[in-house]
């Protein structure tokens, strides 16, 4: 089974605090991490590998220092990693990103299943996975919370929806995006980390993946950001007073009813 995991390096946000005065996020000292959902994607890949053997290849597109994210994946247990890095990729929107990743995957000898996290925590678009599948002309299933069965030519998964779960049977090769429910990601090991440090991570450029330059980076990105601004800050709230729980409950309900919220 040849498994491919797509990885993005994102800014670490768990330590970000809100500045109470400005009500904005404080970003000082924020470092880069592997997109947390991608760790679930790797976990799913490793689970399949545990059972069926094969190879797990991680691919990331990003600046040269995104190599650190790939080393982390290797430390946890991925077998190989490839970094797509080229000035020509800079400024890619989700369409250009999915095209670039798809072109890189086409260069691999063979792949059976591509696994992505459901979305990246910086952009939150969730668009790259389905985009890659389309470029590769393979089926995709998003928001997978459970891989029930995988054989040489098909996969049966459960997909989380707003109302419940769908069971889907797909032929392989295919692409899935996974949610947290797939299972706790395993930790790296010391031996894995030492091995990861020695593993050579090839860096592929636009030329290596034989991409059409017009479909890369800025020129391959139909969308453009033209303005950014702060969202309206929430105004300071009111602390409901009261001598007892019952009085506070009363005071709260009075306010909610007065403004027709309930």
């Amino acid at each position, binding site marked *: 089974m040849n498994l491919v995991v797509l990885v993005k390096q994102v*800014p670490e946000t768990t330590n970000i605090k809100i500045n109470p005065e400005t009500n904005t996020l404080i970003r000082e000292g924020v470092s880069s991490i592997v997109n947390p959902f991608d760790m679930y994607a790797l976990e799913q890949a490793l689970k399949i590998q545990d059972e069926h053997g094969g190879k797990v290849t991680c691919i990331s597109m990003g600046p040269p220092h995104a190599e650190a994210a790939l080393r982390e994946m290797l430390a946890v247990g991925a077998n190989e990693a490839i970094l797509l890095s080229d000035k020509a990729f800079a400024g890619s929107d989700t369409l250009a990103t999915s095209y670039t990743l798809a072109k890189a995957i086409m260069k691999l000898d063979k792949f059976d299943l591509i696994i992505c996290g459901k979305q990246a925590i*910086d952009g939150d678009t969730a668009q790259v996975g*389905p985009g890659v599948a389309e470029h590769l002309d393979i089926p995709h299933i*998003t928001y997978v919370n459970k891989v029930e069965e995988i054989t040489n030519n098909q996969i049966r998964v459960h997909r989380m*929806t*707003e109302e419940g779960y769908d069971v889907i049977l797909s032929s392989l090769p295919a692409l899935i995006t996974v949610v947290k429910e797939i299972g706790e990601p395993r930790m790296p090991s010391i031996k894995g980390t030492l091995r990861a440090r020695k593993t050579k991570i090839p860096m592929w450029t636009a030329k290596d993946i034989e991409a059409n330059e017009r479909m890369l980076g800025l020129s391959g990105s139909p969308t*453009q*950001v033209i303005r950014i601004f702060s969202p309206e800050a929430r105004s300071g709230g009111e602390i409901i007073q009261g001598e007892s729980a019952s009085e506070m409950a009363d005071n709260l309900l009075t306010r909610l009813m007065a403004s027709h*919220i309930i």
Partner: protein
Amino acid sequence: MSIKIIPTKCTGCEACINACPYGAIKIKGNIAHLLDNCTSCMACIRECPTGAIVLKDPGSYQEQPRTLIEQGTGVWIFVEQRHGIPAGVVYELLGRGQALAHDLGEELCAVLLGYNIEFIAGKLAKYGADKIYIVDDKALSDFEDEPYAQVIAGLVTEFKPSIFLFGATTIGRSLAPRIAAKLGTGLTADCTELSIDKKDRLLLQTRPAFGGNIMATIICPDKRPQMATVRPKVMKPAEHNQARTGKIIRIVQEIAPSRAKFLETYKTPGQQENIQEADIVVSGGRGIGEPGNFRLLQELAALLGGAVGASRAAVDAGWVPYANQVGQTGKTVRPKLYIACGISGAVQHLVGMSSSDVIVAINNDPNAPIFSVATYGIVGDVLEIVPALISKLRGSSS
């Protein structure tokens, strides 16, 4: 899109360095320089006190060649439905779509796919659709990405809409990117605001980025249609007008069978309501103390006609199913009323609920960050306050 620094305006104050999440700015010779690892996230722009950091050529998109553009007309919305019932977001798309179509002087068209679903068409017309494209085929009876994407891409190629909106639902966020990649056009995820730039007749698509800390307005100048998924429960739903009619256009297409087949759907026990659709969400965190106490929240939610949500801590402790998790790694909700019970308010949680209309926070720690976003806060024991609320609500309803 990329960023540049205007050296004459830069004072070397380093405000941007602190703002940059990627460490991609360095001060050299008292002027900020962008490094190779800049991802154009723009976090620095608004921190710059002198306006020295700008988007490269903002607004100059008009000058770019538009050879690839195939100008179309019509504002399209995708009618997501399960078993003949349109998702709530469909009415919101109709509402917003109507305004956009009006501004452009174009038609609002609904795209309805499924099997034996034509009866929905009349309803869509009454909610503002001028035209309803219907593809009614057994192959479309259950939602599957491939045939849906194929059919819709076919419709787009044939009728060339200028704008195409989807709900940012599980289905919408799976389907729309596949279609956009097929058509090679732009797609903006999870928009919370849509309007028309009247001069250029472009769709201005605004969405939160970086966990809602920054709002970004995005355009798609050179490709058509301009595609967006729209966050549910943000836009105002269309109003029903009994007198309205729309033109029904039935399309027959040859549909290739899907390689990913829908088999069945199920719910897990304990999973009741869809927290993203609920107008009121009562959420609990670790402060609830033990799983059994969630019954109190269920009771409160039931009295208010709402759903029960949970923080990551409560989900990780195994008290509540993951489907009910609110926050960065769970679901984003925007109810009219969000009641956070025993939730401290880690930033990852706030990201998932801070755009709710009214937020009530109940927590025994007055320093809990949840109070910074709360409309109303109660400092006290959740296990006393919630039962008090329940008994008051019972009293008022009887």
